[in-house]
């Protein structure tokens, strides 16, 4: 197993190289550069030229890439052009709200999806199942900015139960912080709940049709004992893996939610960086997101392999 992990980790290096080269090329191909954006209302050509020289933007592309790589190998991700702070600090600062949002969204999705998924599977093709699968479908098919709009309108403006923009850290401000995260977490969580419901239902059906279940039933155990005792544990594994895979999306991909709710998260960071042509920030964040994605994939694969001995990798 250790050798497998090592091999997989080594295999990620070319992947990361490809990703960094790809994003480097792409972002440098986009028209405009950070100096233009920073000095939009200014005329001074000489200041712009000085800045470009300082930032190394006047060098050919492969030189810039080489320089960035060299710094990376020393563990330095560089500094954001816009605010001069190290990329790592920028990301770190945004990680907390993103992680909290992701955690809350996952919690909400589990709270909704677990009973729904179990019941749908246990009472297949009944109205409960119908409701569960319909809910799942709706959640997946609803554009999430639409959902965000509706939630804001309903809970924020009309009912005024929850704050609609801004971020307060629950770890520092407790309940107030939690309230500020509820609407965005609901937006992400309901959609996630839809996916989890489907997965759970599917894996429950899988597990329910296993032989050991038939044995347990033949032994006379009640349905709920069977479910609780044996089936649920095994059925939850794919759910965990799905959640693990979605974690990457929740953190790096919740851009629209973060934008609409004015949350300072990682998703918005990278999109804003692209708009501002903040090259080091874009490259650094994309690299970190890619690493996170690959690591979580690896974890998921290993988990699969460990749980189900039939699925081993060459």
């Amino acid at each position, binding site marked *: 197993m250790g050798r497998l992990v090592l091999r997989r980790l080594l295999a990620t290096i070319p992947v990361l190289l490809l990703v960094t080269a790809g994003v480097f090329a792409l972002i440098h191909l986009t028209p405009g550069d950070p100096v233009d954006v920073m000095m939009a209302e200014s*005329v001074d050509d000489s200041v712009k030229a*000085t800045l470009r020289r300082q930032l190394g933007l006047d060098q050919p592309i492969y030189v810039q890439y080489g320089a960035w790589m060299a710094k990376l190998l020393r563990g330095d991700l560089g500094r954001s052009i816009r605010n001069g702070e190290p990329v790592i600090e920028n990301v770190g600062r945004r990680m907390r709200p993103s992680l909290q949002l992701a955690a809350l969204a996952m919690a909400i999705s589990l709270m909704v999806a677990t009973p729904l998924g179990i019941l749908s599977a246990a009472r297949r093709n009944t109205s409960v199942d119908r409701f569960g699968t319909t809910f799942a479908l709706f959640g997946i098919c609803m554009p999430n900015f639409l959902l965000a709009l509706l939630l804001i309108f309903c809970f924020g403006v009309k009912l005024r139960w929850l704050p609609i923009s801004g*971020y307060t850290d629950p770890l520092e401000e407790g309940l107030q912080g939690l309230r500020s995260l509820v609407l965005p977490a609901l937006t992400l969580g309901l959609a996630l709940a839809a996916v989890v419901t489907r997965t759970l239902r599917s894996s429950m059906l899988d597990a329910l049709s296993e032989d050991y279940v038939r044995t347990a039933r033949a032994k006379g155990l009640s349905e709920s004992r069977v479910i609780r005792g044996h089936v649920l544990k095994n059925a939850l594994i794919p759910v965990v893996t799905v959640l693990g895979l979605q974690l990457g999306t929740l953190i790096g991909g919740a851009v629209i939610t973060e934008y609409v709710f004015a949350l300072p998260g990682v998703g918005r960071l990278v999109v804003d960086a692209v708009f501002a042509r903040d090259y080091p920030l874009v490259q650094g964040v994309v690299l970190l997101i890619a690493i996170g994605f690959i690591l979580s994939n690896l974890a998921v694969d290993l988990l699969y392999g460990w749980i189900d001995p039939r699925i081993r990798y060459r």
Partner: protein
Amino acid sequence: MRAATPHGNVHRRDFLYLCALASGTLAPGMSVRPVFAQGAPRKGGTLRVGFYLEASTMDPHFSGSKVDRQIYHNIYEPLLTLDVKLGIKPGLAESWQQPEPKILVLKLRQGVKFQDGTDFNAEAVRFNFNRMKTEPKSVRKGEVASIESVDAVDAYTVRINLRRPDAALLATLTDRAGMMVSPKVAQERGAELERNAKGAGTGPFEFVEWVKDDHLLIKRNDGYWGKQGGPYLDRVRYRPIPDDTVKLQSLQAGEIDVIDYVQPRDVAAVRADKNIVMLDVPSLAAFAYQLNQTRPPFNVKALRQAVAYAIDLDQIIKGVWLNVGTPANGPVPPTSWAYDRTIPYIKRDLAKAKAKLAEGGKPSGFAFTITTANIPINVQEAEVIQAQLAEAGMTAKIKLVDAATQLSDGNSKNFDMISYQWSGRPDPDGNIYQFFKTTPGTSLNWSGISNPQIDALLDKTREVSNQAERKKLYSDLTKILQDELPMVYIVHPIEPKAFSPKVQGYEPIPDGMMRFKDVWLKA
């Protein structure tokens, strides 16, 4: 200019209303509901402000963005300030004289201290100008280009020696180029100043903290030199809320107290909302489209004129801007003393448009691209213009770009017709010179116009100091610009600001900057 009346408040409101009416910026049906003081000001409270963008730097000499200025006008102070009619008033400089066209002498206010405790004096002023001119990253260089040197004549007198006469300098000194930073802070913490401006200014508020992406906090400067009026608020908290709709909803939900801009489409609803007070503040800004003269099709003047005749400004102001703005006759906004009301804006005339097409050699029309920023109102305006142009036989394709691409395309003259928004400067020079002066290389003269007559007029506006004379020059310029059309001007927007009813004492100045010195919160 205030007559004594038993209800000083009411008079002020009428005054503002009349001002606005007189300057032609308000249709009589519109009402200005300023947030004036009711009762005695009370100290205390935190004002929560929502802006669309986050500030980029706290160092006024390095700043290039509009949002930064909003904060600067509360923690820093310029040498000169503006009044409600955009006239120049004393700021940190009590008085000024120009013994010769190339010399400006400022007498500084005494007894002013920076928030770090050091004295404000002529030496500090000299230091600041030096910094603006010599720091490599200084963005103010262009603005103070006319300054040759600055001498501290005595502790509170400064003599500015100019390279050439510069009639616009006084107005420039009311903004960032005139803002004074504590030399001690700049010397000891210069590099950090961009993120941490503690103790750096002389203003009614001082910098407390800036939590990036979350909020920026300033607090009352109890050592402020001004003994009349405020500051009253304990603190002001700025929050960036990029989404316009959410920003307004935050105000409606009571999460914030002030927003800097209400979109035209929301104006009617906000006006009807009893829980929000809205102020129509005419601005210095202009929305226009630059036409690229360096390549076809718009290197032909007749075709540029065809575009101008085909565009229906009335329909755009009414249908897109919902009358939250006035049709523009040129770069000078109606709030400016240089505005010439007698010059009409270009009215739509399809017959003339078609005639110009023929004159330009394209009687059956031609095709080109309109590059515009991906902002809802820009998109809407572009769609309407596209339809208007089609009626005259011109086929315009719309290309949406993000800000960086727009800047890049504009700077490299890679466009046919490109949208341009200028936030506006108090002196007309700031709205005109750099756009139309012949400039090789990259500049804000995106259209590439190079017209000797215009150049001569532009230079003259900087030399002449008599305001009436300058105004005549700007009128001449406006007329020529309407003929040459490097830019087709559309609208001078009104920038409505909205407040919670608790906010009192706000006085709007048409430069759009929100100054909170005399603002207080009702209990």
